[in-house]
């Protein structure tokens, strides 16, 4: 082996690197915990763990730290390299091998979760039936052709396209959709239709729909865990010959806006991104128990009816705290509830790698018990043999 490659190999195999990386991860995790007070959990996840370099603000200082991907990735390489070159398989070291194997499974599982996991929410009122869940954060502009009473023809434009102000020309739409302005977070307020937008405001004019009576105030993006961003966009619809005007779209408006063009009727709405499911849930009843004489919640549960279009599944399910419904690759968790208005919100998660932590836990548990158990037995044995002659 070339001396240089040997050096590189030795670096990646060494226990020193392991200890240094573990120490780095210690600092990273600690910094990330403190940073949550300011930034909130979501931003911290992105900046500290889903990154190669994390910048930690300590007062007015900016401290660069190796990010989660860097530390985790190097640890993974270090671990695998150590097992190839340094820790040859031996039965008496089976415990360590199994523990490290479990750790590898866990790290890979987290990587896959980061890549594959999708989170949605599903909000249901009592007796309401839904076959789609909604994103927590991402929005989409839905352009719905409602001309046919039998069905809706829907074209959706994700908010990322709106944010880039791309012009959208879809084969199903006899017009172009042009974003004139996009605000990731904005407040809407009622405004006298005749009065212009506030002087000095850079918000483009809104000529059509409900927006003409609304004042738009762009807001900074919030990262606080108890606040949400409410986007707004001003879009222009341009037909083959001429512009149809500009519309304000925002989930705050509460209902879609309708317009007609080329003999067809369209509805326009900026809403949370939807993911349709091949099955439907109907909320039958929500229950919110509290301990007597207190307002301490004892249990939240939602009784639902699960149906598929082919009729194969048609059953009632009870979803409650610590008891989610797993169905069709999705898991439905009791997330929020308002028992007074009969409203429930499920968190809907799709994570194909959800089993990996369970496997990792079993491997590491067995591995550590084996490793330390063997050491303990050896120790007890040694003490017995050394203490016997002493006693004699």
């Amino acid at each position, binding site marked *: 082996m070339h001396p240089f490659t040997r050096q590189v190999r030795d670096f990646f195999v060494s*226990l020193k690197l392991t200890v240094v990386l573990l120490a780095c991860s210690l600092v990273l995790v600690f910094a990330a915990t*403190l940073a949550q007070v300011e930034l909130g959990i979501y931003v911290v996840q992105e900046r500290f763990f889903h990154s190669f370099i994390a910048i930690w603000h300590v007062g007015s200082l900016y401290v660069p730290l190796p990010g989660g991907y860097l530390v985790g990735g190097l640890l993974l390489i270090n671990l695998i390299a150590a097992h190839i070159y340094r820790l040859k398989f031996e039965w008496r070291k089976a415990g360590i091998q199994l523990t490290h194997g479990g750790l590898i499974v866990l790290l890979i599982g987290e990587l896959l979760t980061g890549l594959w996991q999708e989170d949605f929410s599903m909000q249901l009122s009592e007796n309401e039936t839904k076959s789609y869940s909604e994103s927590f954060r991402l929005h989409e502009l839905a352009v719905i052709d409602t001309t046919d009473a039998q069905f809706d023809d829907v074209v959706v434009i994700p908010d990322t396209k709106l944010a880039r102000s791309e012009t959208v020309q879809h084969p199903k739409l006899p017009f172009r959709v042009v974003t004139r302005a996009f605000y990731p977070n904005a407040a809407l307020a009622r405004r006298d239709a005749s009065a212009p937008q506030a002087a000095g405001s850079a918000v483009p004019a809104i000529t059509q729909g409900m927006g003409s009576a609304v004042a738009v105030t762009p807001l900074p993006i919030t990262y606080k*865990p108890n606040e949400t961003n409410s986007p707004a966009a001003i879009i222009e619809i341009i037909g083959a010959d001429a512009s149809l005007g500009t519309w304000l779209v925002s989930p705050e408006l509460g209902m879609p806006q309708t317009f007609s063009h080329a003999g067809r009727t369209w509805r326009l709405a900026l809403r949370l991104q939807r993911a349709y499911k091949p099955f439907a849930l109907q909320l039958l009843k929500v229950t919110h128990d509290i301990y007597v004489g207190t307002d301490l919640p004892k249990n939240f549960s939602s009784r639902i009816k699960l149906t598929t279009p082919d009729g194969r599944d048609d059953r009632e399910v009870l979803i409650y705290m610590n008891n989610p419904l797993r169905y069709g690759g999705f898991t439905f968790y009791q997330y929020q509830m308002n028992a007074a208005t009969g409203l429930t919100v499920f968190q809907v998660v799709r994570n194909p790698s959800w089993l990996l932590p369970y496997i990792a836990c079993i491997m590491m548990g067995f591995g*550590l018990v084996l490793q330390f158990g063997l050491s303990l037995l050896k120790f007890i044995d040694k003490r017995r043999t050394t203490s016997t002659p002493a006693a004699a």
Partner: protein
Amino acid sequence: MKKLIPLVLVLVGLGIVAASFVPPRNATDFNLLGFGRLPVVVNGRVKPLDTVARTTLLVFQSSQNIPTPDGKKLTPDAWLLDVVFNGPKADTYQHFEINHPDVLALFGLRSDEGRGGRRFSFQQIEKNISELQRQAKLVEPVESALRTPFQKAVVQLYANVGLYFRLKGSLVAPDHKDFLAELLAFQKNVAAGVDAVRAKQAGKPHDAALAEQMMETGGRFSRMSELAYLLAVPPDEGESNTSGWKKVGESLLDSFQSGRVPSSAMVYAGLARTWRAGQAKEFNELLGLYQAQLDKGFATTLKKSGAEVRFNAANPFYTAMVLYVLAFLVAVISWLKWPAELGRSAFWLVTFAWLLTTAGIVMRMWLEGRPPVTNLYSSALFVGWVAVAACLVLEYFYRNAIGTVAAGLVGFGTLLIAYYLALDGDTLEMMRAVLDSNFWLATHVVTVTAGYGATFLAGFLALIYVSRGLFTTSLDKATADTLNRMVYGIVCFATLFSLIGTVLGGIWADQSWGRFWGWDPKENGALLIVIWNAIILHARWGGLAKARGIMALAVFGNIVTAWSWFGVNMLGVGLHSYGFMDSAFFWLVAFAASQLVFIALACVPLEKWRSFRTTTAA
């Protein structure tokens, strides 16, 4: 004589244990204990009035000891009886703790006017109570994390005074002269009275005086029902109906419909009259009748609350604290003189203390119907329990009193922490919906807490190593090697428990809210302990740290564990921070600083260590 030492010490230990098991006796002619055993519901849990009395006293004044103004000692039950039945007398008891000088200034009080310089009676603060209320309203909009010590003290005192009022209105009308007479008159007139009120409302002829009286009584009951703190009227259906408990005021309002005053309300009114009049015989008879009646539908509840009263009186954790201190002293002395005899005695003292805490924890589990760890308080008990159990195992193998010294330290320390955590009120709390899972409490929480205990133990063993090595000549080579092996072994167990516990926590999170790992502060705290233990193990395997280095690392483990146990709760973010405490912040920092001093000491060059200096000299 030397041979007798273990026997004497073990007998002393057994005597201390036995003393705590002696059943409590009534101090007066009144059956105070019987009253203390009566079950009520507070914060969702059925508990004896004795527990209410003790926890309220702890909340009010950080102590269960309460004397009358003329210096007579009151039992918590007698104190509660005066509060609920004899308000004017209770108003003279100095049971409101006020430490902040500015709060005292609100009432124009000086600290030397209080009992022990800090405890004041309702009478002393009564005249300026509206000013307290005004101050509390001013603080209300301030987020609790941002409040100044003065604001916190105001809010605390205001809440305590509020609780005092609520207790006074819990069983009888707070300003009653003779509530029993009132209820008997009401019982006689209720049917006619309701008719009179109905007639009045319908505009028909009616007995105006009676209707007026009924309306007034209704108002009185309704105020009681708004005010009351205790749910003292058990459901008619018996103990199977856990959510049917009512306040006395509520049940009295119901009697307008039913025309029947509930017997519990009558009994409490009767107890009030006899207690005020000092009629012990009548009080005890009435109590006996009520207990016999409860015994029909609430036999299990009564048995449980009786057991809880015994448990309160025995206070096994306090006794264990005394024993741990004793064991620690005996074990330390054993390093200097009579190692075999004193070492063995210390081992038995620790064993007694540990058995007592075991009994206490099992008792709490039975009362609550839960695994051992459900809140911060019980985690302190359990951390100590696990660490001391490991110490006993170490001592069984090595017999060098190191295990017992560590047990004394950790056992006493954790029980002391538990003692301070108990000042917040009843430690047997109901579990919020998301935590309501005995399976996960029994697996994840127990394993993680055991991991805390093991990591602390490794750190305390390292403290012993540093202290003995640096300051005494007692750390010979063999002992040093033994300690080294002990720390290694305990770190192995700490790794096992904290790693498995943390991963199980992830799996619970996956079951409960849909993600295995979310970098929540509490999760991060647990992860830090795992990483730290892994660092110690790998540093040792890689030869990066020798004995002293490992000890320094193990001491730092104390800081890491203290951070994840208490520190993360002080951040006030995250899904499952289960307690925000700020006075504790000071102690956390102080503890961390003390550990840093020990780490610095561990770094002192070897030739300066008294133990090793003599070895090299020899």
